[in-house]
């Protein structure tokens, strides 16, 4: 076949024309294969998490039946044995696992061994608290970290950079619960005669109370998260600012803001957004301390209490929920990467 001397001179633009040949069909299949493979990887991960949590919870010493029956005082051995049987605690472990996993597939997390209450209901009540805390903190951290990270890179080794780095290193070294304790239990009551009202009011029911309860924990947690994100933003910006295309952008006379925001930041911030998404997943499982200090009834504190009470189904349910959110966030980021950055898609 004769090839045209002008490859672009066909009836279609190059990209569209390319779609009709076999090579691109193969590439499309490769992308699809990647997506399917990536989605399937979730399955062994989630099964792995479920096995780990199931085994660890069975390792806990003590007996939930005794705890549920008021510590076992004034209760006969037969009553405890009957209660254990009722709860299914005497079944062989594989049977217990299969029953629990079956429930998970139907999104039925079971009931708390201690209170008998539906765990789905508990999650519905408590997840919004932790979700608001984690989402608020991550959004705030991005608001702080993106400009500071970019500025720090642009003004590398100048006073602004040192100041910002000091600010973020402090965020990494100071224990979050120390600052929270100092602010919530010392600074506010002693000097302002005010502490955030305990408990949680849903924002759509009582917005002002919600704001009173949440602004401080979100502010503190947001600052600490921004420390991690700002450091990454700085380091990826530094990498990008050394690229040839940035030098080209400067050379062709573009204004500073255009080079930094449109050319550099857009490319540098992809890993930053990835980190933010991953941190969101981490925060959902790590907000127990903040919830403790500020007396917020979120899922973190719920798990801490459940572990202490050997309330297996509650711990298993929350761990699976948080792990699933974490895994899905990672998946979303991986797949979005390809959508946002064509270099990744074509690689």
């Amino acid at each position, binding site marked *: 076949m004769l090839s045209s001397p002008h490859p672009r001179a066909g009836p279609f633009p190059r990209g569209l024309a390319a779609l009709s040949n076999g090579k691109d069909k193969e590439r499309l299949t490769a992308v699809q294969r990647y997506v399917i493979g990536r989605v399937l*990887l979730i399955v*062994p*991960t*989630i*099964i*792995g*998490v479920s*096995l*780990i*949590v199931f085994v*660890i*919870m069975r*390792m*806990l*010493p003590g007996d939930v039946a005794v705890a549920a029956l008021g510590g076992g005082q004034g209760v006969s051995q037969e009553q405890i044995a009957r209660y254990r049987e009722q709860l299914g605690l005497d079944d062989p472990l594989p049977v217990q696992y299969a029953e629990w996993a079956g429930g998970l597939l139907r999104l039925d997390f079971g009931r708390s061994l201690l209170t008998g209450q539906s765990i789905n209901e508990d999650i519905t009540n408590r997840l919004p608290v932790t979700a608001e805390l984690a989402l608020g903190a991550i959004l705030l951290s991005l608001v702080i970290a993106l400009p500071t990270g970019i500025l720090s890179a642009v003004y590398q080794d100048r006073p602004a950079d040192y100041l910002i780095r000091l600010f973020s*290193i402090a965020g*990494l*070294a*100071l*224990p979050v*619960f*120390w*600052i929270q*304790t*100092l602010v919530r*239990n*010392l600074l506010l*009551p*002693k000097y302002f005669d005010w502490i955030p009202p305990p408990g949680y009011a849903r924002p759509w029911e009582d917005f002002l109370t919600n704001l009173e309860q949440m602004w401080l924990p979100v502010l503190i947690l947001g600052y600490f998260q921004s420390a991690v994100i700002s450091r990454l933003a700085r*380091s990826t910006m*530094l990498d990008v600012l050394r690229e040839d295309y940035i030098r080209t952008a400067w050379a062709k006379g573009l204004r500073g803001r255009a080079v930094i925001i449109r050319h550099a930041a857009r490319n540098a911030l992809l890993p930053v957004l990835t980190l933010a998404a991953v941190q969101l997943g*981490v925060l*959902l*499982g*790590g907000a*127990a*301390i903040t919830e*403790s*200090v500020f007396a917020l009834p979120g899922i*973190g504190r719920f*798990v*801490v209490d459940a*572990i*202490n009470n050997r309330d297996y189904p509650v*711990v298993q349910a*929350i*761990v699976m929920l*948080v*792990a699933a959110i*974490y*895994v899905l966030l990672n998946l979303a980021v991986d797949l979005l990467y390809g959508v946002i950055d064509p270099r990744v898609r074509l690689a």
Partner: protein
Amino acid sequence: MSTSALPAAGDLVISPRRAPRTLSATARFIRRKPLGAAGALLLLVVTITALFAPQIARFNRLEFHAADAYTEPNRTYWFGTDQNGRDIFSRVVWGARISLHVGALTVLFGTTFGLAFGLVSAYAGGKLDFWAQRVVDSFQAFPALFLALALTTALGRTITNVGIALAVVTWPAASRVIRSAVLSQKQMTYVEAARATGAGTMRILLRHLLPNVMSVFIVMATAALAQAILVEASLSFLGVGVPPPEPSWGLMLLEAQAKAVRAPWLAVFPGLAITVAVFGFNLFGDALRDFLDPRLRGR
């Protein structure tokens, strides 16, 4: 050294002239990374405090002085006393020992296991690597704080068990970092050369690959120590770490919560101690990473 005819790059890492090189490298480190050197100094202070806690502490860490309850910091009680009149300075000093004990166990078990796991997984490749990474995925998806909490509760609340629990939390991330370092190293010509000269798997792993990922390991171990100190304090702060009356810094902060207004020193000094230790490790670790990685020099 390798018995092969070809000198392998991996062997060059271990030099017979180690002592003078170590000294000059230390001097270079201090000159190039003054902040890192400051971090190292902080670490030295924390380590000496931990090692010589019985000599440095002014009172028995558990001893009650009921008459001196809630004493403000003064010449006798440098950091004041708590509700039972226990000397906070002595408790903070002993707290350093607990923190470093837990940190050392975490590195000894967690990071080292991560090193071995990552090394073997990356070198073996194929199905073994695939399934090994799924195990790592599962541990990483497990919320770290909950894992540490559940394990500490399951194993029993002792300092050693907290260290073991933190090791279980730490190893997956450590193995990931080592794995990616080994993946890039195993493509290198020196590994191919070693294999061509008949070196076995164990020899390639231990004599060639291991020395070349040691710098990554050292940096990671430093970070893991800092992280372990923080997480141990967090666990104790939640009331599920080191049991009372031992003076873990986190536990001291937990106990200070309700009394912070009356006795602010109870909340100030243990937190300050955690900050100094973690800050020291972070500064040192950052500088070490930059120092060992030529691409990051000057950042």
